[in-house]
Structure formats: C-alpha cells, structure tokens
C-alpha cells in the first residue's frame, strides 16, 4: 500500500521568508560530498538562489566546493582555527595548555573571523542570517555576530556541542564557557533548527528558545516500496551505510555473529557496508563486503536489496547527550530503502524513541549477545513482524523524513524570524 505524505502547504510567512536575502554562515557550503552540505543544499532548494550568499568557516582538512547549482552566489570561505586540541603537557597542565589555546582563539581569532563576516555582510546585505552551530568556533562566532549585527539570526544544531568538544579533547574550563555561550546563542536566536524531535523538545525546555525539528530528508520519489519478506535465499544480508562512529555496538554485533557462527535461524549472515573509513578489529576475516562510498540514490538501491539494515547508536554513557539529542542521517536513508531497520542503541536515544513511537524498527537496547541475537532471529522468524516493521518504516519516512517535509520545517523555522523580529 502506498502511503501518501501529508500535504505541505506554505503559509504567507513561509512564502515571504523564501524571498528574503539570506546569508548562510556555515562550516561547509551547500555541496555534493558531505552530509551537512547535502542537507544545506536540500534546504536551500526552497529558497531563491539569487537571494543567497554563503560564508563558510572550513575545516582545513576538507576539500569542498560549492554545489554546482549554487555556483553563482556570493561566497567566501575562510579556514577554521584548529578545534582538535593536541596536548603536549601531562594532566592538569595539559588542560591548562588547552585552555590558553582556546582562550587565544576565542579572544583573538574569532573576533578576526567576525570582522570578516561583518565585512561580507556589508557587501551582500542579507536580511537574515542562517548559522550552523558546529564546534566551538561557530558558537563563538555566532555569539559575536548576534552581539554586533542587528539582523535576525536562525541557528541550526546538528549535534550537541558536548560531543564535538569531547572528541576534540577540549579542556573542561573552555567547555563550560562554550556551553554558556551556546545557551546564550540559542536564546538570542529567533528560531533554532534542531536535529531531532528530542533535541527540539529539550532545547525549548532547557534554553528557553524556539526550536523546531529539521531532520535530514530525502525525496519521497526515492523511497522504495516496503519489503514484505526476506529475500529468497539461504543468506541473511545485513546492510550498513554511512559513518562508522559506534564501534562498541559494532563490535558487539560482530562478537554475536561469531558466537552464532555467522548463522541466524539457519541463514548464512553477510554484511554489506557502504561508506568511507571503516575500522573494525578483524575486519577482513569476516564475512563482510566493503562497497565503498556510494551516492545516496545508489545506496538506497543497494540497501533495498539487503534483508535488514543495521543502525547502531551510542550506549556509552559519556555520549549520552549525543544519543539523546542527535539523529543519525543514515536512518532516513534506511527508512527510504523499504527494509526493516535494526536499531541497536539505548532506550533513551532519539532514533530509538522515534522508531518506537512509529513502531518502525526492530529495537535492540542491549550490548549483550542474547539481545542482538534475539532481535536478528525475530526478524528472520516472524514474517508478519518483518513486513509490519518495513511497512511502518515506510510510513514514518513518508510522514517525517522526506525532503519536502524537511524543507517545510526549514521554512517554518525561518518564518519564525519574521514573526519574532531581530536579535536582542
């Protein structure tokens, strides 16, 4: 049964904001390579290209170019100061060293960046700023721009900043300072585009801002029909696409498969992986096919031929806020593929809650072999459940994760800037 997405009707304010001159202040420009850039491009499709300008604060290691469809827009790219901290001194001294570096960046480098942004604003004369808050530099920069430029600002958060700073070994003093700034930036934003429903709810509550979930979407037309059963073969093909960030969960899956001798309910297990840079212990010895990076359309095609799609998410308590607030973009791709998703993550995580609410996934909330084995076995054994999960996943995609839905949410977020006036 085909599920029709709810009609998206743009209101007056949404139409009006689509005609405004908007500055994208981001870590990547809209592009064809990176998830953030793809999403930004997709969102920009609801705006007039003539009205856009873009100022990117790029990671020096990234080689990224403006999306071909937006090549003509005013664009400036500068390099981001180093955010990953290398410590040369031991323990507290190392933290102190990091603190001094961060303080220097905050008080010298960021103001210089802010000056360049202000100059760019003078040249391009935007009416609204849309700023992605990824990493301490962008948070500090957004704060400075809010304080010195009388333009409304809408911000976007992909991941909670704690995660970023933790993985970049930022010292505790700087983290506290950045989190305070982050809170102030959210409060002073006319609206916040949040990465998930949980993030929107949490930020509204904790920071007193107006956050709306703007979750990565894909075109409705890309969605495959939901599968009604496993493929006819003696194999069980588990698909995986995207970044490999949940290593504990992966290792637990592989250990379970080892213990099961790579057989589930009599089927030989095979894993197909799509993406870049996988690091797994004993990776080559196992029954895993590494297919490299594929574009999204091809990924969906390959995933739709698998039996189960594996979506691991952090059990690590130190990554609890990320698990609670972020949303894995691979889940959108998976749900578009029409195959049942096996979500392997804690009950409090946002993808877990999303799938539970829509009954759209097989949920495994433990790292124990028994938990993983039960989830896999059930999907193979219980044909009704298999079909139901795929069907509900298809429905959840159509209702919440299409491009069209994302753009509508994006316009709604921008329209809020209209209704709430300029930054305080």
């Amino acid at each position, binding site marked *: 049964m085909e599920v029709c997405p709810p009609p998206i009707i743009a209101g007056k304010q949404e139409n009006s904001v689509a005609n405004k001159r908007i500055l994208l202040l981001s870590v990547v420009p809209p592009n064809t390579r990176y998830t953030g850039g793809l999403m930004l491009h997709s969102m920009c499709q609801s705006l007039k290209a003539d009205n856009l300008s873009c100022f990117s604060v790029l990671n020096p290691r990234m080689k990224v170019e403006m999306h071909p469809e937006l090549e003509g827009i005013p664009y400036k790219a500068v390099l981001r100061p180093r955010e990953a901290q290398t410590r040369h001194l031991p323990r507290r001294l190392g933290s102190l060293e990091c603190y001094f570096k961060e303080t220097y960046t905050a008080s010298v480098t960021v103001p210089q960046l802010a000056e360049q942004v202000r100059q760019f604003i003078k040249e391009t004369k935007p009416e609204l700023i849309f700023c992605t808050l990824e990493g301490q530099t962008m948070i500090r920069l957004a704060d400075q721009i809010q304080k010195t430029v009388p333009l409304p600002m809408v911000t976007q958060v992909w991941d909670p900043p704690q995660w970023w700073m933790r993985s970049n070994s930022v010292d505790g003093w700087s983290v506290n300072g950045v989190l305070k700034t982050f809170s102030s930036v959210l409060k002073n934003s006319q609206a916040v585009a949040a990465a998930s429903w949980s993030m929107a709810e949490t930020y509204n509550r904790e920071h007193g801002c107006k956050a709306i979930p703007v979750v990565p979407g894909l075109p409705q037309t890309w969605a495959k029909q939901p599968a009604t059963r496993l493929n006819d073969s003696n194999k069980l093909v588990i698909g995986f696409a995207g970044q490999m960030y949940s290593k504990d969960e992966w290792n637990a899956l592989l250990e379970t498969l080892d*213990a099961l001798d790579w057989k589930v309910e009599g089927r030989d297990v095979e894993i197909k992986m799509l993406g870049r840079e996988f690091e797994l212990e004993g990776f080559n010895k196992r029954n895993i096919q590494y297919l490299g990076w594929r574009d999204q359309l091809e990924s969906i095609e390959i995933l739709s031929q698998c039996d189960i799609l594996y979506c691991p998410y952090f059990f690590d308590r130190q990554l609890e806020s990320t698990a609670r607030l972020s949303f894995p973009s691979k889940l959108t791709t998976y749900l578009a593929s029409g195959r049942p998703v096996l979500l392997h993550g804690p*009950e409090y995580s946002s993808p877990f809650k999303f799938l539970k609410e829509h009954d759209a996934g097989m949920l495994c*909330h*433990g*790292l*124990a*072999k*028994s*938990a993983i*084995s*039960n*989830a896999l*076995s*059930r999907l193979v*054994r*219980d044909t009704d459940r298999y079909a139901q999960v795929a069907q509900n996943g298809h429905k959840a995609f159509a209702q919440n994760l299409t491009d069209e839905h994302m753009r509508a949410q994006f316009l709604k977020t921008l329209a809020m800037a209209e209704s709430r006036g300029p930054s305080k």
Partner: protein
Amino acid sequence: MRVVQVGVTDVEGARFNGQDLHHQLIRRGLESSHVVWRKRGTDDTTYEFYTGTLRSKIHQTAAKLEQSLSLQSLLSPLAFEFSKHPQFKAADLAHYHLIHTGFFNLMALPGLTQLKPSVWTLHDPWALTGHCVHPFDCAKWKEGCGNCPSLDVEFSMKKDNTHLMWKVKQLAYSMSDFDLVVCSKWMEEMVKASPLMKKARVHRIPLGVDLDSFCPGDTELKKQKLGVQPGSIVIALRATTSIYKGLQYALECLRKLDVKQPITILTFNQKGLFEEFFGRYQIIDMGWLESNEEMIDAYQATDIFLMPSEGESFGMMAVEAMACGKPCVVFDGTALPETTFAPDYGISVKKGDSDALAAALKELIENESKRRSLGNKGRKLAVQHYSEKEYIDRLIAVYQDVMQRRGRSAVASRAQAN
C-alpha cells in the same frame, strides 16, 4: 482526612515508597500528598523534602560524615525541619515508608510522631537491626547487635557501630508514638521478636495489586510479542546482584537444569547477568520496567516465575505473578512461602538448595497441567487476599483507628502543627 506519605523517591519503587498508595488514596477521595527526598517524576502532588543548594550541601556533608563515622540516619539535621514542611503541617496523619536511605534522621521520629498521628510501613527488617536490611540467620538483632559478622552487607559499615545504632533506634522508638504496618506474618513475627518494638502496635496488611490489570492473558500472544522462540518455556525472574535476591541460586539451578524443552529466561531489572547461558537458553532481558503494561505483558508471557530470594519481607513480584496466573518457585526462610501459600500454590524449597530449585523447575517444565493448575490456584488466592481495594480499605481503617486513638480531630491536629 488528609494524609502525607513520606518516602525516599517517587518513581523508582513506586509500589513501596508511597507513590502508588498516594494516588490510590486520592482515587478513593482522600486528600493525600507525597513528600520525597528525591523527586524524579512530574506529579504535581509530589513534593521534595527540601530544596536549595545550601540544604543539599548540608545533607551531603551529613551523609559523608555518617559514612566515615559508620553511622546511619543520624546526622542529617534536615529531617527536623520536616515538621515545618507545608504538606506535613497540612496533614492529619503522616505515613512513613522507606526512610532508611540516608535522608532521614531517626532522632527526628519522636518529635514528628508526637506532632502528628503516625504510621510507619516496614518493608524490610532494617528498623530492627544494627545496620543490615536483612539479618538472614543472624540473631543478634534480638540481643542488641554488636560484633557484627557481616558488616559488609547492605547498608554496610566500616567500623562496627551496630550496637550503638541498635541503641539509638531503641531510644528513638521508645520516645516515639507510631503504628507499624507490615505486609506479612513473617515480618510481624520479626517485629514481635524485636526488643526495639516492644511498645509498637502492629497491623498486618498485605500489599494489594490491581487485579483487573494484573490478570491472566493470552500467553502465546504475549510470548510472540516479546520475541520468545516458538515452543519455548519461559522462566521469568528478577535479575539483580543484590545479595537478598538469590542471583547465585538462580544461576546455579539453571546450570543444573536438565530438560529437553527449549527454555527462555525472561529477566527484569539488571541486564546481562544471565549471558553465560547464551546458546543454551534464549535470554530476554527486559531491563528496568517503569510501566505496568510492560510488566503485565512479561508476566503473561511467563510459564514459571522463579523467586529465589534469601531475604524477602513480602514478595510483591510473586503476588503479581500469582495474579497473572503463573506458578511460583521460592525459598523457605523468607516471607515468600507465606505470601505464595506454599505448598498449596507456591513451591517452596530449602533455602540455598539449588538442586531442589532445579528439580522444582524441571517438574513444572515437564508437567504442563501442574503449571496450569497452580497458576489457576494462584489467581484465585490473589483475588481472595491481594486486592488493591482490600489493601486500601484496611489501611484507611488503620488511619482512622490511629487518629481516633490519638484523640485528635483533623482540625486540632493541624492547629497543633501550626
């Protein structure tokens, strides 16, 4: 009548900390509030014991001091402030629940119980001992404790102050005026045997369950819902490393179990404790369940409920399993044989005997008609003895009795507290 329930927290252990009772009383038309040390839920009629950073720091300091001096529930000054808590002042009667987890001060009991008619439910024997929650086979609690052979058990002490704590309790209770509620005869007998509670008036009222919700259901359907392997016999149990719940015996008996039928171990609470059986049995760890719906699904999917606790003053989970029509296997020497009406319904074996546990399980696994017949009996007994309505009726009768005996009208009581 207006009642204030006093306990440690609201959400976790809601059956024992006064939260469920508080709501049941409201449903029965009584005015009730719940004051807790740590509020986790969002209920508007549940209040925190104290708020503010300064008080929190005072409490933390007292708790640290207690730990380093090997004292329990004795140094926090905040319990004395409870008499000024608006909910306490407004109440006609205070009902204390689990007050032994560090937030309370035993020496506040005399003052508080003089101010308000008071009821104290003992959910375990801690109030009778020098430090432990369950004394097991130790009889020193009858003679004043001291030279404790098991200082490391919950709530542990570094230095042996068990005699001192026993004396403190004796002093506090002798100056207090409260009525005790216990849930089992086993617990009532302990109270009667305790020199600390000579004065106490004891009421035995078993806890009740919502028999409309906790009821037999479609076992096969629920098994399918939980992903139980087809044809498997489900043994459910609480998985916890608490020394009172008998984890080691559950593990031992499952190691010894020799049956042909496929087995599924369905656990509540801690995850991963039965992982050694991976490949031999199916293990489904439900984790900590906060909703009754999930608990009921799990009970209904169960074939046998195993509860090898070594220390149990009532056994609420056994009662819930009974209400859902499931046979229970338990140990002697706790309240469980009494609660499960062994041997009519519950199968009780010698405490610590994992061979006997395994044999009892084997018999039930291999004999479906026995499982069914015991399950049916269990349901009938639960209906007769463990209805929520009966529990609340009897508790309200105790409240009225206490109020009457203290000879105070609600108005007079409030006036005195104010």
